[in-house]
C-alpha cells in the first residue's frame, strides 16, 4: 500500500515536472512497431539515430519514441503519448491500417500534427504528411531487372513475404510487369520474410525444378536463406537472386560485385527518419511540408551501393 502510494506520487510528480520543464518545447511522439525482425530492427535504429540528430540540432524539439508489440499495444501507446506526454505532433507507423485508424483520429482531435509512415490509414484526410516506401514500385523495378537479365523461355521462382496487403502490392506489380515478356514464373510460395523459411522453400524449389534461371526473393532476409540453399545444391552458376529492402550485408555484397545477388531493390528502413525530418521541418522551417512523400525504390547496383550502406545499423 505504502509502496503503491509512493510510486503513484512519484509518477504524478515526475509527470508534472516533465510537463513544466517541457512547456516551451515542441513534443513529437514517434510510435513504431518493436524490433521483432530485421527490417523493424533497422527502422528502430534509424528512429533512434534521427532522434539524437534532431534533438542536437534543434533545442526546442523533444522526441519521444515508443515501440509496440501489436496493434492494441500501439493504440495504448498513442493514448499515453497524448495523456502523459501531451504531444504536439505524432509520427506513427501503424501496425495495421484498420485497427489504428480510430486511435490516430483521436490523437488528431487533440490538435496534434499527424505524420503517417509506410502503412496508411483506412480513412483519407487524417494525416498531414504521409511518408512511405513504394511497394508497387519495388515489385515493378524487380521485374524490370529480371527482364533485363533474362530472355523468353527462361524460368523464375518467387518467394513471397507474409500474406498482407504489402506483399500483394509487390507481387501484383511484379507479375504485371513480367507479363508478356515470355519469362515463366514456375511457382510462388510464402517465406514469411524469414531466413529459415527462405532456406527451406528454396530447397524445395530446387528439388522440384531442374531449370531455374532467376529467383525473386522480394526481401533480403529471405535472400540470405535462398543463397545458402542454392550453395548447398551447388547451383550458384545457374541463377541469380533479386532481394529487396536494403540490408547492409546484401548491399555490401552488391558493392563487392557478388554474382549470385548482383543487385538489391531499396525499401528503406530509414524512411522513419525521413518522416521525422519533415515533421520537425514543420516547426523549424517556413516552408510548407504537408503532402505525400513517396520514396523511390531504386535499383541498388555496384555503382550506387555506397549511398545506401549503413554499416552501424543492425539491418
Amino acid at each position: 500500500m505504502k509502496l503503491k502510494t509512493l510510486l503513484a506520487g512519484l509518477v504524478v510528480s515526475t509527470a508534472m515536472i516533465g510537463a513544466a520543464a517541457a512547456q516551451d518545447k515542441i513534443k513529437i511522439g514517434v510510435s513504431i512497431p518493436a524490433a521483432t525482425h530485421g527490417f523493424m530492427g533497422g527502422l528502430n535504429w534509424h528512429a533512434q539515430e534521427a532522434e539524437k540528430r534532431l534533438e542536437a540540432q534543434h533545442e526546442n524539439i523533444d522526441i519521444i519514441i515508443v515501440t509496440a508489440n501489436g496493434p492494441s499495444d500501439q493504440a495504448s501507446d498513442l493514448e499515453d503519448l497524448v495523456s502523459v506526454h501531451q504531444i504536439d505532433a505524432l509520427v506513427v507507423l501503424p501496425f495495421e491500417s484498420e485497427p489504428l485508424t480510430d486511435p490516430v483520429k483521436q490523437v488528431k482531435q487533440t490538435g496534434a500534427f499527424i505524420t503517417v509512415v509506410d502503412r496508411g490509414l483506412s480513412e483519407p484526410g487524417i494525416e498531414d504528411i504521409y511518408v512511405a516506401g513504394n511497394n508497387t514500385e519495388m515489385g515493378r523495378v524487380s521485374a524490370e531487372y529480371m527482364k533485363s537479365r533474362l530472355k523468353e523461355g527462361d524460368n523464375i521462382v518467387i518467394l513471397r513475404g507474409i500474406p498482407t496487403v504489402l506483399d500483394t502490392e509487390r507481387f501484383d506489380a511484379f507479375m504485371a510487369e513480367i507479363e508478356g515478356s515470355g519469362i515463366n514464373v514456375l511457382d510462388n510460395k510464402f517465406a514469411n520474410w524469414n531466413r529459415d523459411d527462405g532456406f527451406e522453400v528454396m530447397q524445395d524449389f530446387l528439388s522440384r525444378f531442374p531449370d531455374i534461371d532467376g529467383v525473386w526473393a522480394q526481401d533480403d532476409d529471405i535472400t540470405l536463406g535462398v543463397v545458402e540453399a542454392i550453395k548447398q545444391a551447388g547451383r550458384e552458376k545457374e541463377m541469380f537472386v533479386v532481394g529487396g529492402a536494403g540490408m547492409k550485408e546484401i548491399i555490401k555484397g552488391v558493392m563487392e560485385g557478388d554474382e549470385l545477388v548482383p543487385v538489391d531493390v531499396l525499401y528503406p528502413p530509414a524512411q522513419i527518419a525521413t518522416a521525422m525530418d519533415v515533421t520537425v521541418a514543420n516547426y523549424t522551417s517556413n516552408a510548407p511540408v504537408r503532402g505525400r512523400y513517396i520514396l523511390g525504390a531504386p535499383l541498388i547496383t555496384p555503382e550506387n551501393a555506397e549511398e545506401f550502406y549503413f554499416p552501424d545499423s543492425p539491418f
Partner: protein
Amino acid sequence: MSVSAREETAKPVRNFGIDLKTAGPLVALIVLCVLGYSLNPAFLSEGNLANLLTRSAFIGIIAVGATFVITAGGIDLSVGSMAAFVAGMMIIIMNGAIDVMGVSVWTVILGCGCSLILGIGAGFINGFLTTKGKIEAFIVTLGTMGIYRSLVTYFADGGTLSLASAARDIYRPVYYDSFLRIPIPVWVFIGVAIIGWILMNRTAFGRYCMAIGSNEHVARYSAIKVDRVKTWTYVLQGLCVSLATIIYVPRLGSASSATGVLWELEAIAAVIIGGTMLKGGFGRVGGTVIGALILTAIGNILNLTDIISNYLNGAVQGVIIVVAVYLQRGNLRAPKRKAQE
C-alpha cells in the same frame, strides 16, 4: 489416465502383429509420403529426403525432450525462445573468442560447450521454478519464453547476430556434411531418439515420468522423488534444445528474434501426434519422431505442389494434424472395447 494404465496391462494379452497405437501416426506418415510422391515424384528423390530429414532434426530433437516433460505432466513453452537465445549467445561467444584465441576448431567447440551449459542451465531454471517454486509449468515457461525472446532481440539490437565468416567455414560441415550419405544432423537426431527411447522405456527414470504424469500424489507416496524427476525432465529438455541449436547455427550462421518462433508449438504438436498424452502419464518417443517427420513432410509437400492456394497452407497443416491424432484415438478406443467384451 486410466485408459493408458489399462492399455499397459492389456498389452501382453492382445497378440496383434503390429501395435495399433504406433501404427496410427505411422499410417499417417505413409499416406503423406504416397500423397507426396503422387503429387510430385521429386518428393522421394534422395536430395529431397535428405533435406526433409535434416529439417525435421531440429523439431525432432526438441520434441524428444518435450516427450519427457509432457509425460511427467509438465509443459515447456520456452523451447523456441530458448533455442533462439542459446543460438544468439553461442554466436556472441564464438565471435568474442575469435578476437582472443583466433579461428580454430576450438572456437567452435567452445561455442558448443557454452550452448550445452546454457541449455542445461535454462532447463534447470524452468524445472527448479516449477518444482521448488511451486509455480505452474505453463506460467514459468510462459515467463521464460518472453525473457529469452527479448534477450535475443536485445543482444541483436533488433537485427540479426551473425557468426564471423571464418568461424562459419569451420562450423559449416556440422550441418552440411554427411556421414555414410546421411547428413550429420540426422545422425544426431537418430542418436537422441535412441537414447530417448531407452530412457523412456527401459529405465526407472522413464517409469517415474509416466507414474508422475499419471498421478503425482500416488507417485510421491510410492517414494518417487517427484521434484527431482520433474526437474530432470526440464534439464533434459534444455539439453535437447542445446543439441538442436548446435546443429542449427551452422545452417545459416545467424540468430535473430525471428529464430525458433513457434517451435514450442511444433514440438508439442509432434509429441501429441506421436501418441503421447498432453495430460501426461504416457509417453512414446518413437511416436514423437514420426510426429516430427509428419510435420516437416506437410510443409515440404506443400512446397512441392502448386495445387493448393498459398493462403491455405496453414489450414492444410491443421487438418492433417487433427486427422493424424484422430487416427490414433480411433485405435486407442478399439482395444478398450475389446477389454469390455
